[in-house]
């Protein structure tokens, strides 16, 4: 039989030490008095209200009216006229974050009277012709091709008139060479972006954009 091993004497302070978990629990500060006054119904109501305001604020921004971009351009641009805008300078930007090293041809179209015809050249890669609603939706875009000039001819018609059946009898139908684009809104923007490769290309870009047209009525 093995001799009984002596039990080591524990120091006096050991029994006073609480387990670690207990110590942490004891150290946690009690919730402040005002927090204990908030009922669960209040918390739930606040969350619901927050959710409703969150969704309401997000959804109403685009519904309050046209986007800020269109609001700014509507004041500056006459309807159904192509305006060529030189590369932006500090303090003279049409819109924030627009490419600074590009010419822009911008036409604010209105389909109130008639369809709108567009003719525009796209000289190179990076050139684009894009159509936007007042809310900023880009419902049509065509990019330029590398080292190849594309001469575009388009007709913008109201969305409901895309079908030939709905076209008023007084209006001439577009020719087969003209692409017909249905606009989801009665007004909008036609934007031709002409990036500059360098200063030497300024004249070429200006000349090309001066050929761009945006006219009410379908060309006959």
């Amino acid at each position, binding site marked *: 039989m093995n001799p009984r091993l002596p039990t080591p004497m524990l120091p006096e302070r050991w029994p006073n030490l609480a387990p670690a978990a207990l110590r942490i629990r004891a150290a946690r500060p009690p919730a402040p008095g005002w927090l204990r006054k908030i009922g669960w119904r209040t918390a739930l109501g606040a969350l619901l*209200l927050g959710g409703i305001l969150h969704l309401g604020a997000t959804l109403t921004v685009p519904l309050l009216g046209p986007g800020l971009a269109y609001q700014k351009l509507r004041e500056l641009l006459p309807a159904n006229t192509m305006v060529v805008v030189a590369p932006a300078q500090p303090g003279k930007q049409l*819109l924030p974050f627009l*490419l600074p090293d590009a010419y822009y041809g911008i036409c604010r179209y209105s389909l109130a009277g008639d369809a709108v015809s567009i003719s525009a050249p796209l000289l190179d890669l990076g050139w684009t012709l894009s159509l936007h609603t007042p809310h900023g939706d880009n419902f049509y875009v065509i990019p330029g091709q590398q080292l190849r000039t594309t001469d575009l001819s388009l007709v913008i018609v109201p969305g409901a008139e895309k079908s030939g059946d709905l076209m008023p009898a007084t209006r001439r139908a577009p020719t087969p060479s003209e692409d017909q684009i249905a606009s989801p809104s009665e007004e909008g923007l036609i934007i031709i972006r002409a990036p500059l490769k360098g200063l030497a290309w300024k004249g070429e870009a200006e000349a090309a954009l001066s050929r761009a047209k945006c006219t009410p009525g379908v060309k006959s």
Partner: protein
Amino acid sequence: MPRFGKLIVNLAAIAVLGIGGGLGSAWYMVEAGSRLSTRSFGPWTTWLAAGRPDADPYTRAHTARNALLPITSTLELTLYAKTDGEGAQLQSACDYAVTVEGLEGAWWNLAAFDRRGGLIPNGADRYAFSSDSAMREPDGRAVIVVARDARPGNWLPVGAGKITLVLTVQDAVRAAAAHTGGSIKGMPTIRKIGCR
């Protein structure tokens, strides 16, 4: 009296949590975006549905509020960087090297703006470089140095304050990759060279 105090506390809680939290979170989601509406590639962030007629409400609100006219993100990606590759804020007190490598076949443009989208005045009158205008290294890379003082090569000058770099990439293949959750080949790196 204690009941009145409890009522006040409850009303305050509704105001702070409900109004503050609801409007504050809406503002954040519309201005900064979240994983629901944006996608990040290193320091670059893009609004996935920008310009699209079927865009989500956050993207539509972001476009409307910030006076943007984006080209549909199915053709062209617009990527914004407010930090360098290490996550530090881009600021004009520091110089940065933006290395564009691997965007072959795509048309791209890199421009520097202030945080509100305004151009930063500079004596050189230079605000952007593109795949057409940037000089290339012998190995095909384009290294653009964003700095306040003149630098050799592709120098993109910036003034005082914080900077936002905007990269526009026109390439339907890369745009499709961004939408399907794939990686985009050749996203530029932003490396801090040094600060004053």
